[in-house]
């Protein structure tokens, strides 16, 4: 495999063999190692020393179902630490097929200008693209697919990335209507903007030509994995994810009192029934939209939807739980139509719906609009794309918005907004938010739905549960596997070991796999420490330890000593 180096200072591209230190890494693990090896941890995230990395996971491009996610990484302008955010779509598969382990974008142009990187099967080039300036991600990807072919994958930023707003994300196209798959968290769109890179276009690859180390081993493990997915009533065509999508959890998160409501001031939302997955499916199908579509080639779970308006016109490629929580209940909005409109704008401007939703909640608490007032919220959201001073503040995320308006109730950890689970009623997630090197991020170790292990409202066992989940998340993010496909691998890690050995011939054991997963976290923790992040930064906001959350009157009361020692035996 090879690395594609893109020097934005010299405006040159080059391919190089994968250095030995990176050979057995992929996705998130590769990003952590590369940042440690190649950038000064204390550097300016929007400066010339930071690097932006696009990397499929170890399984990317080999046709493993649900395993083609693309990791995007760099130093985060939002958290000041390591950042990996991954997205579905076709990029992970395309890069894997053409033997690219990672694209590493370095430096900053010395002159104004805007560029696209065109990646072909046998080369790459930087092309000036001033005509794309200030376009949203939808128009950008449409124009580039008109030029390079409908089968090309487009990775792009919108206006927010160009403005280097700290909640800016990176959009990846998928097949069909799934145009917006977001590497959403941590402001990586701003890093892309800082490098004057508007988009990466990857030509549609031909047939896979890469040789496998052990064809039979890979095929047998891959087949067994797929069988497990398809035949599992939780995951297959009768599974909740396929039928109701990620929104299937709205009612349950509300019932346990953890649904962010009105800037995280309650764990229950009185209109949650209008936001449920069941309502989403019913509305979508009644209007002629789609349910159970897929974001990645070969996905057998197919949890996506195409949400349409009352006339059947598509609004967004998929409406997801985190967006519904942060831009619905968190803003006092009980209408999926309203959430979908805001979701479209976030996708187009290229901002994270979680951090932007949290920022809007904080802005409303500051008196800039009212909870439940869609018109007022829409007006604030429009300002993000327009780049007004207020819009730039909101587009810089919840932490910045709170600082500017003097609001103390700001739901962030390590500068990054909390996703759709209030940590006071789901304390395992609070431990993950506080301790993950990625900042507040449910995908770094989500305790929701864990059974027979810990009481979500108790203190006991939260640290151990979070650690276990964080190690699993590191595996998922480094292999390219979607988190919904994790049950068969958790039940039988040998399946993953066999797939990796079948592809690469590394002779991994289950213990090697375990150490691989743990090393991802070790590298990230080391990078953050060298960035200047201390134990005092890995904390839940003080108000969440003091202000009780309805309906359970819960505060976050897991001891700091538990947070500080979670990785002691990593």
């Amino acid at each position, binding site marked *: 495999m090879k690395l594609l180096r893109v020097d934005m200072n010299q405006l040159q591209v080059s391919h190089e063999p994968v250095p030995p230190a990176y050979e057995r890494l992929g996705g998130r693990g590769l990003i952590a190692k590369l940042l440690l090896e190649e950038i000064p941890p204390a550097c300016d995230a929007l400066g010339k020393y930071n690097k932006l990395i696009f990397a499929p996971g170890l399984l990317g491009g080999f046709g493993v179902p649900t395993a083609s996610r693309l990791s995007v990484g760099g130093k985060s302008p939002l958290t000041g630490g390591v950042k990996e955010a991954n997205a579905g779509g076709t990029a992970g598969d395309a890069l894997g097929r053409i033997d690219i382990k990672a694209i590493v974008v370095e430096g900053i142009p010395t002159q104004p200008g805007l560029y696209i990187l065109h990646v072909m099967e046998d080369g790459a080039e930087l092309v000036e693209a001033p005509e794309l300036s200030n376009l949203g991600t939808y128009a950008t990807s449409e124009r580039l697919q008109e030029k390079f072919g409908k089968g090309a994958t487009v990775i792009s930023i919108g206006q927010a990335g160009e403005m280097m707003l700290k909640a800016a994300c990176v959009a990846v196209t998928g097949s069909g209507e799934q145009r917006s798959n977001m590497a959403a968290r941590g402001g990586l769109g701003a890093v892309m903007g800082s490098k004057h890179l508007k988009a990466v276009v990857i030509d549609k690859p031909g047939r896979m030509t890469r040789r496998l180390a052990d064809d039979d081993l890979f095929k047998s493990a891959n087949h067994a994995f797929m069988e497990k997915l398809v035949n599992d*009533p939780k995951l297959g065509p009768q599974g909740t*994810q396929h039928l109701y999508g990620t929104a299937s959890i709205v009612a349950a998160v509300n019932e*346990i009192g953890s649904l962010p409501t009105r800037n995280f001031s309650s764990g229950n939302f009185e209109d949650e029934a209008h936001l449920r997955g069941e309502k989403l499916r019913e509305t979508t199908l009644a209007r002629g939209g789609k349910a159970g579509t897929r974001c990645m080639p070969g996905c057998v779970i197919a949890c996506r939807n195409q949400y349409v308006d009352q006339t059947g016109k598509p609004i967004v490629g998929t409406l997801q739980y985190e967006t519904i929580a942060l831009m619905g209940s968190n803003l006092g909005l009980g209408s999926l139509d309203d959430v979908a409109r805001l979701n479209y704008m976030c996708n187009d401007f290229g901002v994270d719906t979680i951090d932007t939703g949290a920022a809007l909640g904080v802005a409303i608490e500051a008196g800039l609009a009212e909870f439940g007032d869609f018109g007022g919220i829409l007006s604030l959201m429009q300002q993000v794309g327009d780049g007004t001073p207020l819009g730039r503040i909101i587009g810089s995320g919840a932490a910045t918005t709170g600082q500017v308006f003097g609001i103390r109730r700001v739901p962030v950890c390590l500068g990054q907004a909390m996703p759709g689970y209030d940590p006071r009623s789901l304390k395992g997630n609070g431990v993950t938010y506080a301790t993950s090197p990625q900042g507040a991020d449910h995908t770094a170790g*989500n305790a929701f739905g864990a059974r027979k292990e810990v009481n979500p409202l108790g203190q006991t066992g939260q640290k151990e549960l979070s650690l276990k989940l964080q190690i699993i998340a590191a595996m998922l993010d480094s292999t390219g596997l979607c988190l919904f496909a994790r049950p068969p691998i958790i039940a039988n890690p040998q399946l993953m070991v066999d797939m990796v050995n079948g592809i690469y011939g590394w002779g991994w054991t289950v213990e090697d796999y375990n150490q691989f997963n743990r090393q991802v976290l070790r590298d990230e923790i080391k990078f953050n420490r060298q960035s200047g992040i201390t134990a005092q930064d890995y904390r839940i906001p003080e108000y969440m330890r003091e202000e009780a959350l309805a309906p359970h009157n819960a505060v976050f009361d897991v001891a700091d000593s538990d947070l500080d020692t979670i990785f002691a035996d990593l």
Partner: protein
Amino acid sequence: MDIEVKLFGQIAPELPRSQEISVPDNINMSDVARILGLNPDLIGLMTINGKQCEDEEPVTDSSRLCFFPYLSGG
């Protein structure tokens, strides 16, 4: 005793999504699931009065019980 039962997702679509029923005293969550004829293999998460619980959790008068399918946060 009387309890409120709510069902979600693909659990027993033939039953009302929300109903009040009378059940014997001294029963637990799995007893209620059995009385309703729910397929235990499809139950992924249960709550009683908003608190997550397991099969053995005692059910008390006037409680609100929820049965959810397997869920995964995302």
